[in-house]
């Protein structure tokens, strides 16, 4: 099986993330890391590959710095990588991202396209379904248990009402939940080996994607304004020095909830 895993490079830690008030876009100039939800998709792809042979290609879209995230996936064990990077892609919303990503995924001809369950920066949990529609493939989301056999994929997942088991023929698109596995840490050998693995970087024109369909120009949603959140009251944060339990009790007493 050939598996394409989509990963996103996100600003590290939500505490430092900020939206640029000028462009109204997420500031991606700082340190970034692979979206942790996507490491579960990488892990699942590697497990399928190890169990039944195959190939895992990592696909990402982002600034040049997204190479860091791509390399992390390669260090975990993916075989090759494809990064869509183009200044004109900045500010892409769901439909614009879908247009570019689908154009990159289509020629890969993967049997299975995997996504993590959400992006930690945008809280988006929707991309797989849009990509599946664009590529005209079946989709299963929120999968907590995945089986690939006999040209079919079977996913168990949880919904508001219980547990579903859904089957679809390959090629298919699957989004996995973070409950599906425990992602491995890259080994030293994996990290060293990642550098020599095939890594391609493509622009929108190389993908044959018209500039008007991607980036801000191709986006159908717009950020109008940024506002401060309604006050929730201050967060008191403390590090345990052995007296945390006492401090929690004091706090609860003060708030009259004890």
């Amino acid at each position: 099986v050939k598996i394409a895993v989509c990963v996103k490079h996100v600003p590290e830690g939500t505490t430092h993330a900020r939206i640029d008030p000028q462009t109204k876009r997420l500031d991606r100039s700082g340190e970034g890391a692979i979206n942790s939800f996507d490491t579960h998709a990488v892990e699942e792809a590697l497990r399928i590959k190890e169990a039944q042979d195959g190939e895992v290609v990592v696909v990402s879209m982002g600034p040049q710095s997204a190479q860091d995230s791509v390399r992390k996936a390669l260090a975990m064990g993916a075989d090759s990588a494809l990064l869509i990077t183009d200044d004109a892609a900045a500010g892409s919303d769901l439909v614009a991202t879908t247009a570019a990503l689908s154009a990159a995924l289509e020629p890969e001809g993967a049997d299975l396209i995997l996504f993590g369950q959400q992006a930690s920066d945008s809280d988006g949990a929707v991309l797989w379904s849009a990509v599946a529609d664009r590529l005209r493939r079946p989709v299963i989301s929120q999968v907590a248990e995945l089986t690939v056999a006999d040209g079919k994929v079977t996913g168990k997942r949880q919904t508001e009402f219980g547990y579903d088991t859904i089957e679809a023929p390959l090629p298919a698109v699957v989004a996995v939940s973070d409950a599906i596995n425990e992602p491995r840490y890259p080994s030293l050998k994996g990290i060293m080996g990642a550098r020599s693995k095939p890594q391609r970087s493509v622009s929108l024109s190389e993908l044959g994607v018209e500039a008007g369909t991607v980036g801000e120009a191709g986006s159908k949603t717009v950020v109008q304004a940024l506002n401060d959140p309604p006050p929730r009251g201050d967060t008191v944060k403390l590090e345990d020095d052995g007296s945390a339990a006492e401090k929690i009790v004091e706090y609860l007493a003060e708030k009259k909830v004890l």
Partner: protein
Amino acid sequence: MPAAVFLEHHDGELLKPALGVLAKAAELDGDVAGVVLGSGVKDVAGKAGAYGAAKVYVADKPELEQPLPQPRVDALAALVQEQGIDTLLFGASVLSADVASGLAARLGAGLNWDLTDLVLEDGQLIGKRPALGDTVYVDVGWNGEPRLALIRAGTFEPKETGGDAPVEEFDVSFEDFSLAATMLEQAHAESEGPSIEDADVIVAGGRGLGSPDNFKLVEELAKALGGAVAATRAVVDAGWYPYATQVGQTGKTVSPKLYVACGISGAIQHKVGMQSSGVIVAINKDPNAPIFDFCDLGVVGDLHEIVPKLTDLVRQRRS
């Protein structure tokens, strides 16, 4: 504006998040339609008028019997085009998120998600979305039509208007790939344990507990506080704790006076189920855990040491 709301249903009942969105849409524009998709759903469709729908569009097809997203994308795409619907709203759920997203790709339309309010400003529809761990509230809009939006579950309360709405059927032709996925089995969640929905105090455990056995720590603290035990989706999926105790997007929404989160990172799925709690206390060893962005008291430390001590202190105080 011909606006419509996707009305998800289960076991013959329209879902509360969808009816809440319907109430809001009706408040913004009296002439809002409901859309009910399924097989043998004319009865359930007839209930929408009582919650504010001026009209109900229904596609009643065997292909729509299972709650799978892609046949619903075909149906809604046909409806939007036939009726010139310019705004289509969804109450967020596992199913509706996939439907809305697939539809956005199909129609080349804008989708805004996780909205916690909808307002009209100078006749323009604006969505409000908390972002970056609720550190910023973003006003979002749309370029072109139709405008698609997913509204966070629990945002709007349904309103019974006691009205009556005509039901209008429409036809759908399905794409081959839309019918490729099939539901093999649907297992309903196990029977309800003690309810966490009415508890004044909830102590919740997440993956940071390290093992199912450590739920004992959470149970002991809950007992000392006179509260109920809750769990995150991750540990429920891992089989550590029963589904009936799950708080979050695919579980229950709770708002106790006190919520103590032990070893919970605060993923958005969990957050949406508990963020309206009175006082939120979080204990987590990872100082960067998102939960520290929306708790009242955040303690960075080892819950295995802190929680038993806390349980003892609470017991002493209450005895």
